[in-house]
Structures are given as C-alpha cells and as structure tokens.
C-alpha cells in the first residue's frame, strides 16, 4: 500500500480537488462520448477541441481562467457548426483545411504573446496538455455545474438521440425535432470538451471523450451497459492516472512529477487495445464475412 500511495497523497488539497473534479468530468465525457461515437460525430468533438485550444490560450493572454476560454470558443464553434451544417461530410473538408488550421494558428500566437508578457512558460503546457493539480478551488463550482448541465442534457435526450441515430426519418416522422435535438447535443458536446480540456488539456480532451466510449462499445451490447462501462473506464483512467502522477514525483528525473494527462491517455488507449485481445472477433469482421442471407425463418 505504502508504495502505491506515496506519503501525503490522501492529505493533499490539490489531490482532493483533482479526484473530485476529475471523477465528475470523466463521467460526463464518457457518457457524452458514447453518443458522440454512436452519432459518428467524433470529428466534431475533435474540431471543438482544436477551437477550444484557441479559446484557452486567448483567455490566458487576457488573464482570465482558461475554462471560460474553452467554453466560450467551444460553444461558439458548436453554434457555428450547427449553422453551416458542418456535421455533413462535405462541410467537413472545407472546415478542416481552413477553420481548424486558423484556430490552432491563433492559439500559437496567443500562447507566444502570453508567455512573452508573463514569462510563465508552464501556461502553454497547461493549456495544451492540462494539469489537474493546478485547478483553483474557486473554479470548482463552475466546473461541476457545467458538467451536470451537459450530463443532464444528454440524459434527457438519450432516447431521441438513439432513435435519431437509428434513422433520422423515423424520428422526424414521429415528431422529434431532429435538428434542435442535434443542436442541443452539440452544445453538450462543446461543454464536455471544455471540461475535459481543463483536466487533460485542450489537445487531448478528445481522448477522454472518445476513448472510454469506443472501448465500451466494443464490450457492451446495449446502450445502458455501454454508458455505465464507458463511465467506469473514464473514472478508472482518471483515478489511476492521478495516483501514478502523484507517485511519479519520486520517479526520475526526481523532483518533477510526470503529467497526469500522459497517464490518463495511455491508460485509455491501453484499455482500448485490450479489447482486441478478446477471443471473439470484433463485430465488424463478423458482419463483413456474413452473406446478406439469413437462415429461413418459418413465418410463425
């Protein structure tokens, strides 16, 4: 036990905050992520992360908490995407080449200027790759409230999102406002990306969103089990990541902890790869080999 939890782990204030905030954000990201993967919107999640990077570095430049930068730019980008219909494949190509490149270019400028003025080179690292141990306690209520809002949105929309994923036409014929539901979901996605950016960085936020969900979809068949599994994987990755990051303070080069986001992302990717070791083949391979014929079922 002693060697797993290094001295001071349980009494450290930053560790407490990291565990509490990390857990809530991991659950939110994982649950939102299951719908992101199901709806085929991983790309939208990634775009929002890139644009959130710009927001975070802009916030740093003007001296406000980075979370507000992530949130404002993410939500603005989500609204813009909804307006021009970026979810559709054709819109994506243009956006990838132009908007995202420009966003990261701006982020580079903001980070350069910010670090020039304040000579805190650590800020670039925090924005890009996150740092759970420097979450200020004053932002905790805002983080928790945003997480609960995103989570509540997705829970309320769960069934209509699944029906729309199955067939937007059926959903529309049954009176679901498909477009409005998609827009509300995109907002929840933007909030969730902003939250993930706080703990593992803007560039890596997609990992916490997509990784646990993609892993869960490989092992759980139904929607409820998939959501619970994804949340479990996300929380486990955050907890183990925090413990390892704390312990790494005593690892070489001694006196400097390794970044939490490194551990979290590595654990998530490791978990995903583990699903490929299962004996049964992935569903996709089975479906591909199967002829489009069924055994004759006698019409009952």
């Amino acid at each position, binding site marked *: 036990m002693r060697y797993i939890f290094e001295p001071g782990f349980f009494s450290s204030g930053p560790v407490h905050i990291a565990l509490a905030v990390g857990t809530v954000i991991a659950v939110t990201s994982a649950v939102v992520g299951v719908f992101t993967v199901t709806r085929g919107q991983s790309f939208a999640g990634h775009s929002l992360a890139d644009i959130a990077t710009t927001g975070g570095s802009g916030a740093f430049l003007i001296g406000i908490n980075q979370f507000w930068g992530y949130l404002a730019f993410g939500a603005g980008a989500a609204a813009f995407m909804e307006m021009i219909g970026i979810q559709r494949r054709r819109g994506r190509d243009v956006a990838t080449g132009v908007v995202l490149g420009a966003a990261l270019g701006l982020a580079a400028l903001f980070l350069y200027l910010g670090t020039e003025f304040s000579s805190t080179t650590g800020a670039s690292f925090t924005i890009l790759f996150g740092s759970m141990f420097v979450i200020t306690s004053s932002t905790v209520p805002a983080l928790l409230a945003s997480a609960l809002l995103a989570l509540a949105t997705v829970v*309320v929309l769960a069934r209509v999102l*699944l*029906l729309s994923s*199955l067939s937007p036409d059926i959903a529309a014929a049954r009176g679901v406002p498909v477009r409005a539901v998609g827009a509300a979901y995109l907002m929840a996605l933007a909030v969730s990306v902003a939250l993930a950016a706080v703990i593992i960085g803007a560039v890596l936020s997609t990992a916490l969103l997509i990784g646990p969900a993609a892993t869960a979809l490989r092992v759980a068949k139904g929607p409820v089990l998939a959501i619970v599994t994804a949340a479990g994987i996300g929380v486990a990755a955050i907890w183990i990541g925090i413990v390892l990051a704390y312990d790494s303070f005593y690892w070489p080069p001694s006196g400097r902890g390794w970044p939490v986001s490194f551990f979290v992302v590595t654990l998530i990717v490791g978990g995903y790869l583990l699903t490929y070791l299962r004996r049964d083949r992935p569903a996709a391979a089975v479906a591909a080999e199967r002829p489009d014929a069924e055994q004759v*079922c006698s019409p009952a």
Partner: protein
Amino acid sequence: MSADLLRLDGVGVRLGGREIFHDVSFTIRAGEFTGLIGPNGAGKTTLLRVILGLQPVSAGSVLIDGAPRAHRDASIGYVPQKLSIEPDMPLRVRDVVSLGVDGHKFGIRLPSRARRELVDEMLTAVGAQRYANSRVGELSGGEQQRVMIAHALISRPRLLLLDEPLANLDISSEQGIVSVLARLARAEGIAVLLSAHDMNPLMPVMDRIIYVASGRVAVGRTDEVVQPEVLSRLYGQHVDVIRVHGRVLVVAAPDGTDHEAAAAEDAEIVR
C-alpha cells in the same frame, strides 16, 4: 367497405422547382395490402414521405381518417429503406424494438417486465426472437427488416409504410417478409403500403396496386392496373405486359427512353 384510412386528394409535389407529382389521388383502407410499384427513381420514396408528413405538398391534401394529418401521427408506422447501421452502434434488437414505443420521448425510462414481454411478443410476430439480444448492426439485411417491422408495429399503427423492404434480399428472406406482412394485414387488420420496383414477389398477397411512373399514378386492383393499355397511358409510351408462369414482366419498346428501359430492366430480373 370500411371508411378510408388514408386519402390523397389531388396531391402535387415540387422538388427544387421541378414538378415531381401532379394530381395524385388514391385511398387506402384498413386491412388492405397495397403495393406502391414503379421503376427506380419514379418517386415512390417521395410519395411515402408525403404520407409521413416529411415532404410538403405543393397542391392537394393528405387526409388520415378524414382529417389533415397531425404533426405526429401514431397511427402510421414506418420502415425506411435499408438503414446503414454500424456494427458498433450500441443497440440490441430488443433496444430497437423498445424505441418503437417511446423513442420520441425525452427523459429516461426504467426497465419494466410488461415492456419486455411486449417486445418479445413483437419479435415473435415477425420471427426475430432468435436474435433478440444481438446487436442490430450485426444482422443481415433481411433480419434488420424484420426488426424494423417489429419496431414499427409495437406502437400499434393502423397503417404500415415500408420503403423497398425487399430490395437486396435473397428469395427466402423476401418470401419470409412478404408472408409476415400479409399475415399482419389479414389477422390484425393493419393496412400495409409497401414500395417495390418489382411487383412479382407481391403478386400473391397484393390487394391493390398503386403504379407510379412519369409523375403520375394508376390505382386499382392488380389485374385492372397491370394491363398494357393502362401502363402505356401512364408511361406515355407503348409497353407490353407479359405474363409467364404467374409472373409479370413489364417491357418497354426497344426505342424507349431511359425511364421506360429502366422499368423493363427491373421487371426482367430472373428469379
């Protein structure tokens, strides 16, 4: 004869400024099995979307039970053209059927035994109970069709619309689906409106036919409509109707335009 369940009256449809349909009228009655037949691209899907309220009309009216259709009409069940469901979509067959009850509602629902039994009942009715716990994305085309029919049926619709449910199915799946639908129409009194580019698999069960071509429709009993004079008038060009071993081939003259040639091609698929 019972009252009309569905009535289209002088319906016109314009898409992108082009008139797709002009003055289309027909009725559907309870328990009738109607085939919506026509070549690919004739507008069968558009007509189904009009009935569903997904496609606005430029003229005429769509009446359900004599009243303009409501925004959401629970009396119509819909099975769209073959869905592209990824195998990693976290929906088992029973989840899909369950979404047929309340997939349009907000909030969450706790599992219930009554719901489970209702889902099992629907899966049995379409012969899909064997794969109730499989992911729907892992099923074959015919199996997915059965599941989507159960999904549409569970809300107890009085009219079931199916868009090309027999496309890309092997013969045994095709016969299985047709007999399930015929039984539903006969036993449950559900009106079935099914679109297909080939009428032959439907010949034994079809009460009436709505033949779509050139932006118009010909409606009536199958033997009335599938006649060279009627279809030639509809296509605006001479077509022959050849009956061989109980099968029907609609064949255009060799100098026919692409449109008619396509119809002939569809009918010529050898079984």
